[in-house]
């Protein structure tokens, strides 16, 4: 077959037939940050038939340390990540049909994106979108590969509808808060390790070697020299609302979406979690203290000022992002600070 793919065709797990399978497949990568660019480059070089990569953000200089498809030019010109990624991926391999979409993925978009997709790779930075991916993957029976990383730590799990537990089985509720790459940082090797786990799983699924799929939830810490793998198959729940019988796909319904609204005349965006929460304001302050902004706290809220931007966190979970009317930008800041 093609010289270009000869080394992976020589590999037992793929072979001629596997390569032909790869070239017929369509992968959706949600997010074109660190995990998204890493996975996209590997799958593009491997010669997957079609790759759709979506992202709402543009390239910034702080991305360049780990987001491997981008250059200083992209950051200086604030090129949307979907555009910069598509350009670079096409430069790498013209065989692959690459479609970069500038898009904030919510429930409406995800339904359209998933049609005719063989696999979804999670390269997002928050659990709101992951629960959306989890439900839509179950609804249409599409495998997806969760990946997450912060600091020197990362983890991954492959979710096959009808076979493995789903993210909702494992977590039961959307985690609120928690460390993010913007609060505690991340090193590129941790990203690459997760990318390696995700893209290896992707290749197995795309060449249809399902027996080789890793059954375990895997995690590592490259700085503390730890690794772990847990067989979580017994956590699959028969009554799980996302993958049990009958499924209700709760995160595809309006009530469970994170709501956003521009507050008229205030140049402010309000973001409201789907359910009332009791936010631990002291823990939030500890987390924000690393960020180097000004923090004020009273029993009801925490106000955080950094440069020309003020973000106010209420105890009931609502967040006001002042100084803007752009919902997409506001959600970006929200997830950067809260995960």
């Amino acid at each position, binding site marked *: 077959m093609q010289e270009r793919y000869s080394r992976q065709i020589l590999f037992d797990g793929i072979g001629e037939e596997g390569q032909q399978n790869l070239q017929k497949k369509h992968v959706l990568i949600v*997010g074109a*940050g*660190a*995990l*998204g660019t890493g996975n996209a480059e590997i799958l593009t070089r491997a010669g997957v038939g079609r790759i759709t990569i979506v992202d709402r953000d543009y390239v910034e200089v702080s991305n360049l340390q780990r987001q491997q498809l981008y250059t200083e030019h992209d950051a200086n010109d604030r090129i949307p990540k979907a555009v910069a990624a598509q350009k670079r991926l096409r430069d790498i391999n013209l065989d692959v049909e690459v479609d970069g979409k500038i898009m904030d993925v919510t429930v409406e978009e995800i339904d359209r994106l998933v049609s005719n997709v063989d696999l979804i790779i*999670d*390269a*997002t*930075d*928050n*659990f709101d979108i*992951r629960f959306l991916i989890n439900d839509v993957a179950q609804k249409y029976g599409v495998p997806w590969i969760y*990946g*997450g*990383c*912060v600091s020197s*730590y*990362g*983890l991954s799990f492959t979710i096959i509808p009808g076979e493995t537990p789903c993210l909702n089985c*494992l*977590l039961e509720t959307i*985690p609120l808060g*928690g*460390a*993010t*790459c913007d609060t505690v940082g*991340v090193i590129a090797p941790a990203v690459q390790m*997760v990318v390696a786990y995700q893209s290896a799983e992707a290749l197995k699924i795309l060449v249809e070697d399902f027996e080789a799929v890793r059954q375990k*939830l*895997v*995690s590592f*810490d490259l700085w503390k*020299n*730890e*690794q*772990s*793998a*847990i*067989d*979580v198959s*017994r*956590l699959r729940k028969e009554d799980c609302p996302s993958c049990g019988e009958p499924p209700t796909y709760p995160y595809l319904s309006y009530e469970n979406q994170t709501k956003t609204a521009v507050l008229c005349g205030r140049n402010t965006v309000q973001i409201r979690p789907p359910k009332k929460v009791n936010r*631990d304001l002291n*823990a939030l302050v500890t987390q924000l203290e690393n960020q180097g902004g000004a923090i004020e706290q009273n029993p009801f809220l925490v106000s955080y000022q950094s440069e020309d931007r003020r973000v106010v966190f209420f105890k009931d979970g609502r967040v006001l992002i002042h100084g803007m009317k752009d919902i997409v930008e506001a959600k970006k800041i929200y*997830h950067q600070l809260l*995960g």
Partner: protein
Amino acid sequence: MVIHVNGEQRELSNDIQTVSDLLNHFELGDKKIIVELNANIVDSSQHEEITVQDGDRVELVHFVGGG
């Protein structure tokens, strides 16, 4: 007390009695986490009841959102 945590041998104070104590020791108490004790997953509702003992093998995987 010596416990194997994620493949590494750890010498821990005997004050650590329950899975909950162990998670707090590693500053994982407030995280979404899956705990495996001697190859059995411990339900999160039992973290305060199940005790850890010398020689136990514990695997801890917590979820993070970054990417």
